[in-house]
């Protein structure tokens, strides 16, 4: 275990740095109630106080402590990102793997549905969904699930088709294994590497989409400590209170950066073609 960890750090230094950032993010999210000096929704102070000893990140337009909101924002972002991706990618992966393996009408029709969903610009689709569903954190998650499912279905389907063509699946078929046994015992476990890559890379995507929705006024309700929402309020006060843009912006960039670094190195590790040096 220790040697594997050391190997990861020396072999994938960027990935290790990403993992560290993600670890800090998870800790901050879990310990938010203990770490934050004030409540995220307490509008109890003077508005637009510059960062200083009392408020390390200053206060916002309603006199809320920005540090506390950024800390609680980690919890919100991670919650939205992880839940939506776990549901969306898992749903899409199962859908893509099963219909891809079975083929025929179920595969063709589901691929056409995926085509239609993917023809719409993602942020516009999410915006329309939020307009129809109403603004709440859980509806942001629902919109993200609808956004993530088709792409995951498409990706995992192509992986599953590759796996389905391998001799060991043929052997299982020849041995008389049932369809469900082949799908759940042989096919899906062999798609796991791509599934894990999809999950890690999409969490950062989901976090950015959540923030973007807040930015166009269709995300979580404004009093929720969403990094995107804080940044939006900051842009409106760009000249008087630039810290309102910097700190939430920094938080979201750092989180997404860490997740991307980690996802990237996981992708490299699972793709044997990219290992080793030049010819």
């Amino acid at each position, binding site marked *: 275990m220790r040697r594997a960890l050391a190997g990861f750090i020396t072999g994938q230094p960027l990935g290790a740095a990403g993992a560290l950032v993600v670890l800090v993010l998870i800790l901050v999210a879990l310990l938010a109630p203990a770490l934050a000096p004030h409540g995220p929704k307490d509008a109890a102070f003077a508005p637009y106080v510059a960062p200083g000893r009392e408020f390390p990140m200053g206060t916002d337009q309603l006199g809320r402590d920005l540090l506390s909101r950024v800390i609680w924002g980690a919890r919100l972002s991670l919650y939205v990102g992880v839940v939506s991706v776990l549901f969306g990618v898992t749903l899409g992966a199962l859908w893509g793997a099963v219909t891809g393996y079975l083929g025929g009408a179920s595969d063709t029709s589901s691929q056409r549905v995926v085509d239609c969903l993917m*023809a719409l*610009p993602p942020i516009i689709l999410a915006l329309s969904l939020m307009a*129809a569903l109403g603004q709440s954190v859980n509806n942001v998650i629902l919109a993200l699930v609808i956004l993530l499912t088709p792409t995951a279905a498409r990706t995992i389907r192509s992986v599953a088709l590759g796996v389905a063509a391998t001799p060991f699946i043929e052997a299982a078929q020849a041995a008389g294994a049932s369809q469900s046994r082949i799908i759940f015992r042989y096919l899906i476990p062999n798609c796991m590497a791509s599934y894990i890559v999809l999950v890690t890379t999409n969490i950062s995507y989901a976090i950015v989409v959540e923030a973007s929705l807040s930015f166009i006024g269709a995300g979580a309700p404004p009093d929720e400590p969403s990094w*995107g929402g804080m940044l939006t309020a900051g842009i409106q006060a760009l000249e008087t209170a630039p810290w309102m843009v910097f700190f939430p912006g920094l938080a979201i*960039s750092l989180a997404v950066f860490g997740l991307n670094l980690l996802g990237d190195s996981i992708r490299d590790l699972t793709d044997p073609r990219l290992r080793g040096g030049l010819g």
Partner: protein
Amino acid sequence: MSSYILHRLLLFIPTLFGASILIFVLMRLVPGDIAEILVYQTGSESSTVQKRQIQQIRRELGLDRPVVTQYLDWIGGAVRGDFGQSYVQRRPVIEILKERFPRSMELAALTMLIAMVWAIPLGVISAVRQNGPLDYLARLVSLSGLSLPLFFTGALILYGLVRFFRWLPPLEFVSFTENPVENLKQLIWPALAQAYYISAPITRLTRSQMLEVIRQDYVRTARAKGLAERAVVYRHALRNSLLPVITFIGWWGGRLLGGLVIMEIIFVVPGMGNALIQAVSQRDYPAVQAMIFLMALVFLLVNLAVDLLYAWLDPRIRYA
């Protein structure tokens, strides 16, 4: 080849209709319609009067008919280029499209141009120096582009311009044909921010394609016959790596029209994204439907063109 084109065309049309049904149904699910918005805005007193007004407006706009009839009516007009009247702006939607579409397309083209010029060489450097310091630097730069959310980059650019140069990009839109310099003064900033964002996947793909190609036998042959490294990299490896990169750029280009919303808001570009956000909040169904339809159409057309180009360039696809 011709059967491949036919197959692709046959897929294109139902997808477009499917997407249009999706938009239509989605907009009808949004609570509140234009009639309610118009009536409650004027603030008349009696609620029975208001209800009667709402009924009347709905009847005039045809919103009281079954959704299926409304859809058939709309799509029938849309395929003939008639997208109906905007409820709010009270002029044909096609006029709004004619005004907004070229602006967003210009921004999209500028973005793609900047992204390509910057991302492809970065990917090549990254691959040629795999796992060296330059590779790490290039990967860090491109990954940080992907990590900075667009509105953050946009806000930083705006803040930097104001703070350090005491200069704000023009807020009044001037078309390129009218005054190219003024036009670019406004559009270059959103294009730069957006290009920085989308260059990350382009760099990454160029890198991984280069890494794959550079291990092929013909590259070894090129080296073995004593070609200079430059010629090996640029003439033999890069050319053969670019095919998937071009596909990907095409895909992104088609996607970009809808993705420019955020930049248009920050830099006050009166393009399609800005108009769309406004139309959604005003429940201006004809305008929303037409704009999303157009975005989907552009995306699908670009995809189709890219697929056909790919098949034309790579015979393996054609005969598969």
